[in-house]
């Protein structure tokens, strides 16, 4: 299972990096978005991936101990935060690109006035 996740994370990081290096500003933002996704999957991978069943989901069915062995809830809390933050970041980066286009009249970053 780890191998599949590792391959995905590696591929997403590679493609995201490639996009970050483009001259088209929109593609740079896409690169950021893809790298955020990859990082989130990476974090989930670090908590150990268990195929979802009603037992493993970190939502308890019982109010009393002993509690069942769920998947790691800490990484999920982290990733939940990360998803929301990366949403804010991507939205901001997009608007910034829009404003940069207005100021420079081009979305090609190499054509900007220094």
């Amino acid at each position, binding site marked *: 299972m780890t191998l599949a996740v590792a391959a995905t994370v590696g591929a997403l990081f*590679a493609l995201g990096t*490639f996009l970050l290096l483009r001259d088209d500003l929109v593609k740079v933002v896409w690169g950021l978005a893809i790298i955020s996704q990859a990082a989130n999957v990476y974090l989930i991978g670090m908590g*150990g991936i268990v195929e979802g069943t009603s037992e493993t989901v970190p939502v308890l069915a019982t109010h009393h101990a002993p509690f069942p062995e769920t998947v790691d809830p800490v990484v999920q809390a982290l990733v939940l935060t990360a998803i929301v933050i990366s949403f804010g970041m991507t939205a901001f980066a997009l608007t910034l690109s829009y404003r940069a286009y207005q100021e420079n009249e081009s979305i090609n970053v190499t054509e900007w006035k*220094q």
Partner: protein
Amino acid sequence: MEPQLWVLTVAIGLPFVAAVLTPLFYRVVGERVGYLGAAVATVSFGLVLTQVGTEGTVATPWIPSHDVALRFHVDGLALLFALLASGIGVLIFAYATTYMHGMPDLGRFYMALLAFMGSILGVAFAADLLVLFLFWELTSVTSFILIGYHTEDASSQYSARMAMIITVGGGLCLLVGLLVLAVAAELAGVGAFNLAAILENAETIRAVLEANGLFVPALVLVTIAAAAKSAQVPLYFWLPGAMVAPTPVSAFLHSATMVKVGVYALGRVRPLFHGPEWMFLVATLGMLTMTVGAILAVLASDIKELLAYSTASHLGLMIAGFGFQTHYGPEAGAFHLFNHALFKAALFLVAGIIAHEAGSRQIDELGGLWRALPVTAAITAVATLSMAGIPPFSGFYSKEILFEAAWETAQAGGGLAWLYPATAVFASIFTVLYSLRFLWLFLGEKPEELGTVHRAPFTLFAPPAVLAVGVAFVSLLPDVAIGFLVDDAASAAALEPVAIDAKIPTHLSGPVAMSLVTIGVGFAAFPYYTEIRSILARLHGATRRTHPVTVYNGLLGATDRASAAISTHVHTGQIRTYVWWLLASACALTVAGYASTVTGLPTPTSAETPVAMILVLGVAVFAAIAVTVAESHVTGVLTLGILGFMVAIFYILASGPDLALTQLVVETLLLLIFLLVIEELPAFYRELEWGKVLRDAALSVFVGATAFVSVLYAAPAEDRGLTETASEYVDTAVPEGGGTNIVNVILTDFRAFDTLGESIVIVIAALSVLVLVTMRDRGETQ
């Protein structure tokens, strides 16, 4: 008797408190704020004075888990140093109120001066390695501010930067040296940062240092730090540069106190490092500086420059004193520390008077000043004769003890050790020469070109007069000063019993003969001063390429050029350049880390991957590829959406329903925002440059491979179970959080503050978006 903690804390803390308040007072009372400084210095002086006769260590915990404490140790050496700093401080503040009259930025000036005084008192009493380092660096920083007082002046900037680089560079050596000591102390079972305990258990620490081969490194590091601070060869050149500072600063920092921090520190650690290596390094360094400083002082053309080189030379004398192994060594070091502070501070103040009243600092333009400045002339006579070491003035006694130390060392060592007394005499001849030259400014005929010399106001000559009276007092009754403090100071640095014997010799011995030669040759050569100077100037010019300051400028220029060259490559203003360097270096460091710590590639676990998950992840990767090769922005955004939704499904499969929900909401919103923005942006057409694409692809593969390997290394073993933190949350979610959804409980209860921070981030992002979108139309630009 035990010292009192509150007295020391107030004495050290008060200058800092006053420093913070000074700018406020300056607004109210103007430049009279200098008197506040004098008052603070008087209070500190008085408080330190009450501790005379006490000895011991007092502490208040600071970081108890690491045994770091605000720890002060009081003994003769600390008291001597602190009394000099605060006592001369009083005079300097009084002098500065007149001298700095009408100058700008006096609030900042007095603030830095007060903070400096507090730091120097801190260095004097600090008995904790970290506290010592802190105060040590504070003296460098305040010195930087004071040297750079004329902020607009290029030479002032250059000199301040030079002093900063040298002394802070030395400070870094000190830090490493102190950490080595701390490690040794911890190994020896003595509190790691407790300097007082380290010195008490010097033998044990020394054994630990030697067993681990750290003795010489620690010794060398501490010596470099002291040499940088105390202007020893080859790091002396910042001191003459520091003379661009106003004269009160030169008198206070760069003659009496800050430059003695290095000497003081060596005196402090002498009991720990004492031995043949110590003597070879420290005594030789001191002797060398004594000679070089004295020769350069003879060469100087400016009176403050002369005094600066002379200071370096005398600091060399003290360091050599502490370097010698015989009991005469620390006696000479401590006694000269005291004498030098008195006469050199007086001479700097005299130099200020000359500059102020005669309008020139050039040695060749000055002469016959005694008619206009009779009191100043008397002060100068006492101070210069003491500096030259002419009996019966105070400088003679301490220099005579140094001669005894050198003589005894030579007799014990034989052979090359005779170079010590020979060098001491050679250097001292030059000392006599430049001292007489300085005195000659007041004697002889007044040159025609020199305009009217004004009389000095009382407030200018009173402070040096007090110091001169001090010199005269020590000259007449040396035993009183010795008995009061200097004996205790010397014994703090010595292992042997100490008994300073200061009197005019009555019968001939080796050291006495050394003094006779010094004074005789000095006086005999003085008529040929100009000739000696021109010979020295020729030698000096011929060796210019090897001067430390030339090396310094060369290194500085090379660093400048190198950083300019690097920045044209790294700092281009193009996103791709930054991404390139950042990712390439981050990945290279990561891979280097793996290569150096992990053996072999990670083996992926064998658990089977469900087909659904392979399918979802595969679609996600294909979507990402589609995004990368997308022709138009719209197709790219839509395929980016597919990637996001696939990741959401992956979360469902990987037991994270909350993540999937959030991801779905976020993806939907993002898709909308993307489409809204893209509608406003033009299409992008550009021919592909294959060279660029290949290079970028190479970096991408490198980054991807690093990420791939990192996931494999970081993934937990499948049968590991939950971490301690995770199972704690699982077990307490219901009883303490009152909810069965553990992720929710973590976010809203256990780590609610983090979630609040996250919400603030989103709010800031939203506000920024709003500003970016709306403010342009309101005419923010153009």
